[in-house]
């Protein structure tokens, strides 16, 4: 469902980690474009820079050099506060370990980002409940994360990521802690959200199941893009 609207444009991204003794080159000149409606996956061996790239695209980290243009805005020219506003309003995150707030219920976890956006209570309730219905989370609203299975927690994490209708959802190894059946159902759910709500997804994974669902596969090796291929099966 690519509409050719460019959301992310990366040009010659370099990221080095300097611990004072050794400089580790995590990314060595990445050029990448992500379009609205993409359902893309980044793959590659451990340490190839997938998570680092995801963090830079998600404004969680800054590149050592190169430019990140997100929805027309250059991250290099934005303050940390402006980057946090972009994360709040335009980017959703799904983490490997879910990172749900342990003291909040499933409903409250999903509602939290809407609260940050100052959405009125009635609208928040409507949005969260509609989404929970769509994602088959009904009946779990009042449960704390520890009372949910891994798959259910990841569904709540996805709900939290998409409840604001973000331009882009970044998903880092989201199938790593669930069984293959649950992984399959999570990916089907995200595919549905991609098709129905036109939400762009970018995955970072080792899991071949994710690759099956992807329409574009980006292969990373030693901090560089080794190959970009389109999956004719899913286009």
């Amino acid at each position, binding site marked *: 469902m690519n509409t050719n609207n460019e959301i992310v444009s990366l040009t010659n991204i370099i990221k080095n980690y300097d611990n004072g003794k050794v400089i580790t080159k995590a990314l060595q000149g990445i050029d990448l474009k992500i379009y609205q409606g993409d359902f893309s996956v980044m793959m590659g061996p451990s340490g190839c820079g997938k998570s680092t790239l995801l963090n830079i695209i998600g404004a969680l980290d800054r590149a050592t050099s190169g430019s990140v243009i997100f929805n027309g805005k250059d991250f290099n020219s934005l303050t940390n506060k402006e980057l946090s506003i972009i994360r709040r309003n335009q980017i959703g995150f799904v983490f490997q370990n879910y*990172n749900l707030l*342990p003291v909040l219920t499933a409903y409250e976890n999903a509602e*939290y980002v809407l609260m940050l956006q100052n959405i009125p209570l009635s609208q928040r309730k409507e949005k969260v409940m509609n989404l929970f219905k769509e994602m088959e989370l009904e009946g779990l609203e009042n449960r704390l994360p520890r009372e949910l299975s891994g798959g259910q927690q990841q569904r709540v994490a996805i709900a939290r990521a998409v409840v604001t209708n973000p331009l882009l959802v970044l998903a880092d190894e989201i199938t790593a802690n669930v069984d293959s059946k649950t992984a399959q159902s999570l990916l089907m759910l995200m595919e549905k959200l991609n098709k129905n709500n036109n939400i762009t997804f970018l995955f970072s994974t080792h899991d071949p199941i994710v690759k099956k669902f992807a329409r574009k596969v980006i292969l990373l090796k030693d901090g560089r893009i080794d190959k970009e291929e389109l999956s004719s099966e899913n286009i």
Partner: protein
Amino acid sequence: MFSIVIGTGIPIFFVCIAWGFYAGLIDDVARLMSGHITYEHVEYRNSPSNDLWVDDIQKIDQTLNNNSEILTTKQIVNLQGVAHTAKGSVGISLMGVEPEKEIIISFLPENIIEGKYLSKGDERWVVVGQKLAKNLNIDIGKKFVFTTNNVDGELTEELFRVKGVFKTGSKEIDGHFVQSDIGIARKVAGLSNDDVSQLGIIVKNPDNHENFIKDLQKSVAKNSGVFLSWQKIMPDVATTIRMDRTAISSFMIMLVVIVLFTMFSTILMSALERKREFASLLALGAQQIELKIQIFLETIFFGLIACPLGALLGISLAKWVEGYDMMDVVGGKTEDMTVGGFGMDTIITPLFSLPLILQISIFFFFAVQLLSILPIYLISRISITDELRSA
């Protein structure tokens, strides 16, 4: 929150107990001797001799009893002299009092262990301390001769009979103190019904009487009379209490430091445990300032809940131990517990001073707010990617 409750509760418990001991001691001693405030001859403090008295006392007494700040007064005639029996002689202090008032004011009538306490108009009857009775070999109904000098400086003698024997736990009082009716004391001293050695004043608020004394001095005192606080009348007791309070305060400071350190560790641990949570919130788009405000409000909320709960805990604990004898806990003899020569009541009687409890609670409330600076500082240094990667 638990650490704040405990941290606030323990000092409040100790302060209630310690300050209760002092308040009880001061009140007991003041009521036994010459009140929280004493009216006496201006020279009496320098040399408490029998020929220094204050006059016009009935009028002054009536004026004082009409004052709303004063609970009651006690007229006293003090005579220093020697008590003789066949066994020997002992230097004593005879205090002539109004027995019907003394029963209400002082704890001495309750401490009679043999015989009875005095009644109004008892001629030549006295109550003596247990140790004095032993030293003079006297018992109920037995007599002794009291030699002293009257207000004219002439030697005079009077025969007294023992009506009761008391035991206070103080070596000084039990060994050298005698009480009689004020009528016979006046007669021995050669004083009129309008003269006393001291007029003791029992006030409602013993802690705050400096300004009150100044007012009394201006409005009531005669040329030769002066109003003095119990601290000036019993400087040894005041000094001992001051020293003891300093020691307790030092202990309290150490206790507070330990409590604050424990709170600091708890808050530090909880902040470190929540770093991942803070990182998640920042990743979701929360701004640092929003998280800082959140932590600040959380700390205020916890402080508002935990500090009153801590105060309640301290008060409840103090209430729980009320009435127990401290000697049962620490061991030793009640007789050994003296302050400035006066026996201490070892029964635990806490003082629930609202201003003091509020001060301690408010101190811990603000201390907790200060300690919350640490997690606020940690947030400003948090690396979202590091925290989420380590999750």
